[in-house]
C-alpha cells in the first residue's frame, strides 16, 4: 500500500548558536520550537504530535503548551531526531496526528539545566567491560576502529586529517559556524593529541544550540508559506553501544542497514543525490558514512574527499554547514544535519549547492551504535 507522503513545513535552529549561557536546555528546545513554528506560520495550538530527546516529551509539551495525540520520546543519542522524523511520518500517515513538532536543545558547553551524559555511554555492560580500561568517553571509544580502518585500506593519518580540512572550507562559508579560519593538514596533525591517531581538530566541538522541525502531510504542506521539503525515504537500525563489540571496524552495520532501506523506500539511486550530510563526531565517521551509504566503494572515501568530490563544486557536496567538526556539535548533532539538508533543499543554505533537489542525512546514536537515514527532496516522486 502506498501511503501519502509527509513534508517538512517548518524548520529552524536556535536564535543563537555556539555559546548560549543564558538559556537552559529546556529553553533551547523551546527557542528552536518557537522559531520553527514562526517559520511554518503556526502556534503551539496547531501542534498535535511531539517528539524530542534529552528533555522528556511531556515536559516539553506542557512547557510549550501543546496537547498532543502522539508522543515519541525515543532517545538513542545523536540520531534520535532522525528516528523521530521517521516515526512521525508513519504516525501522520496512520492518522494519529496531523502536525508534528520535533525538537532538540542541548546546553552541551554551558551546561545550563542540562541533562548531561549518562554514567556509562555504552550502558551497564560498557561500564563493566570497557570503562575500566579507559573506554569511558567518546574520544576513547568512537575512535578505536580508525586504526584498523586505515590499515585495511592502506590509508594514513593524513587521510583522516584532510576530512577536517575539507569541512573547514565549508564552514568558512557559514556565518554561524564556530570555526571559520582555513586549516591545513599540518595544522590538524599538529593540534593537541587527544587519542592517537586523533588530534583535537579531528574531534567535534562542544557547543550549545538546538533545532526543530515541523512535519505534516503532503496535501496540507502545499498551504504553508515555505516550499515543502518532502521525505522521500527513511531508515533506522542499530548494532550496539559497546565499541569493542562492533562486528567489523571497517564498516558500520547500522549505517548500511539504515541507508539501504532509505534508498529503497525513496526509489532513487546514489547518482540522484545532490547533497549529503554525514554525522561527523570524529574525522573518520564521514569515511564510513560515504562508503556505507553506497556513495563510495569500501576504502575509497578518503580518495573521494581528497579529489574534491565532497567540496565546493564537487559532485557530492558533503557536510556543507561545516559539520560537527567546525559548525557546531551540542552532543546530539543529528538535528543540525537535517536542518542543513532542509536549507539546501529550500535553496537557502549559506553555502548553497546550486539546484539541490535531493539531500541525504545520515545520523548516529552512540558510537556506531544506532543509525538513522532520511532522504529529503523538493518534489514528490
Amino acid at each position, binding site marked *: 500500500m502506498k501511503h501519502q507522503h509527509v513534508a517538512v513545513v517548518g524548520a529552524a535552529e536556535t536564535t543563537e548558536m555556539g555559546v548560549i549561557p543564558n538559556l537552559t536546555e529546556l529553553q533551547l528546545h523551546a527557542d528552536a520550537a518557537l522559531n520553527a513554528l514562526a517559520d511554518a506560520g503556526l502556534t503551539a495550538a496547531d501542534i498535535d504530535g511531539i517528539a524530542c530527546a534529552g528533555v522528556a516529551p511531556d515536559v516539553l509539551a506542557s512547557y510549550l503548551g501543546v496537547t498532543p495525540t502522539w508522543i515519541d520520546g525515543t532517545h538513542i543519542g545523536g540520531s534520535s531526531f532522525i528516528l523521530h522524523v521517521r516515526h512521525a511520518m508513519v504516525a501522520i500517515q496512520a492518522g494519529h496526528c496531523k502536525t508534528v513538532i520535533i525538537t532538540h536543545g542541548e546546553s552541551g558547553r554551558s551546561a545550563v539545566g542540562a541533562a548531561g551524559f549518562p554514567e556509562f555511554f555504552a550502558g*551497564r*555492560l560498557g*561500564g*563493566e*567491560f*570497557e*570503562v*575500566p*580500561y*579507559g*573506554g*569511558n*568517553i567518546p*574520544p*576513547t*571509544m568512537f*575512535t*578505536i*576502529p*580508525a*586504526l*584498523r580502518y586505515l*590499515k585495511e585500506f592502506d590509508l594514513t593519518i593524513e587521510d583522516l586529517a584532510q576530512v577536517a580540512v575539507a569541512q573547514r572550507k565549508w564552514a568558512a562559508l557559514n556565518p554561524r559556524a564556530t570555526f571559520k579560519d582555513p586549516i591545513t593538514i599540518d595544522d590538524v596533525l599538529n593540534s*593537541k*593529541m*587527544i*587519542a*592517537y*591517531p*586523533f588530534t583535537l581538530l579531528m574531534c567535534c566541538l562542544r557547543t550549545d544550540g538546538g533545532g526543530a522541525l515541523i512535519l505534516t502531510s503532503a496535501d496540507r504542506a502545499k498551504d504553508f508559506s515555505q516550499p515543502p521539503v518532502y521525505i522521500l525515504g527513511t531508515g533506522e537500525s542499530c548494532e550496539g553501544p*559497546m*565499541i*569493542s*563489540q562492533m562486528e567489523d*571496524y571497517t564498516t558500520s552495520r547500522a549505517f548500511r542497514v539504515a541507508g539501504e532501506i532509505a534508498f529503497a523506500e525513496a526509489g532513487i539511486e546514489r547518482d540522484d543525490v545532490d547533497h549529503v550530510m554525514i554525522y561527523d563526531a570524529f574525522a573518520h565517521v564521514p569515511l564510513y558514512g560515504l562508503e556505507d551509504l553506497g556513495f563510495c566503494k569500501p576504502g575509497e572515501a578518503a580518495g573521494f574527499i581528497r579529489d574534491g568530490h565532497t567540496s565546493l563544486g564537487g559532485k557530492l557536496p558533503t557536510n556543507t554547514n561545516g559539520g560537527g567538526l567546525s559548525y557546531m556539535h551540542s552532543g546530539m548533532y543529528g538535528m543540525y544535519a537535517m536542518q542543513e539538508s532542509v536549507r539546501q533543499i529550500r535553496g537557502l543554505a549559506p553555502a548553497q549547492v546550486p539546484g539541490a533537489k535531493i539531500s541525504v542525512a545520515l545520523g548516529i546514536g552512540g558510537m556506531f551504535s544506532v543509525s538513522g537515514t532520511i532522504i529529503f527532496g523538493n518534489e514528490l516522486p
Partner: protein
Amino acid sequence: MSKNFSERLLPRPSPESQHFWDGTKEGELRLQRCGDCGKSYFPPRPFCPFCSSRNVLVYPASGQATLYSYVINHLPTPGFDGPHAVAVVTLEEGPRMMTNIVDCEQTPDTLVLDMPLEVTFERQNDDITLPLFKPAS
C-alpha cells in the same frame, strides 16, 4: 570506600557476569559457549546471542589474542598515568574484548595491529582482578 580521581573505575559484577570476575581472580579468562550452535561469545549472558539458546556453558579461554585496534589516550583518565592504549583484542576463540596492553611501550611503533598477545591478570582489590594483555612470549 571513597573514590578519587587517581583510582581506576572498576567493574561492578552482576549475577550474569560474576563467573567472569571469579575466573580472573583465579587466573582464568572465562568465556561462554553455546551448547547448541557451538559459538563462543562475550560479554557474559546466560543465553546464546547467535541462536537464543539457554543451553550455554562457561569455559576457560586460552588467553591468546591478537591486537585488533586501539587508540593511545592522552586525556587524563582515572587510574592511568600518562598516555595509554585503550585496545580491543580478538581472542583466539573469536570474541573480542576491550583491554589495556601492558609490558610494552605505549607508542604506535610498538603497538602494531595483529601482533600476538597473551592475557595477564592485574589484581585491583579483593573483588576485582582485571584481564590485561601483553606481547606474547
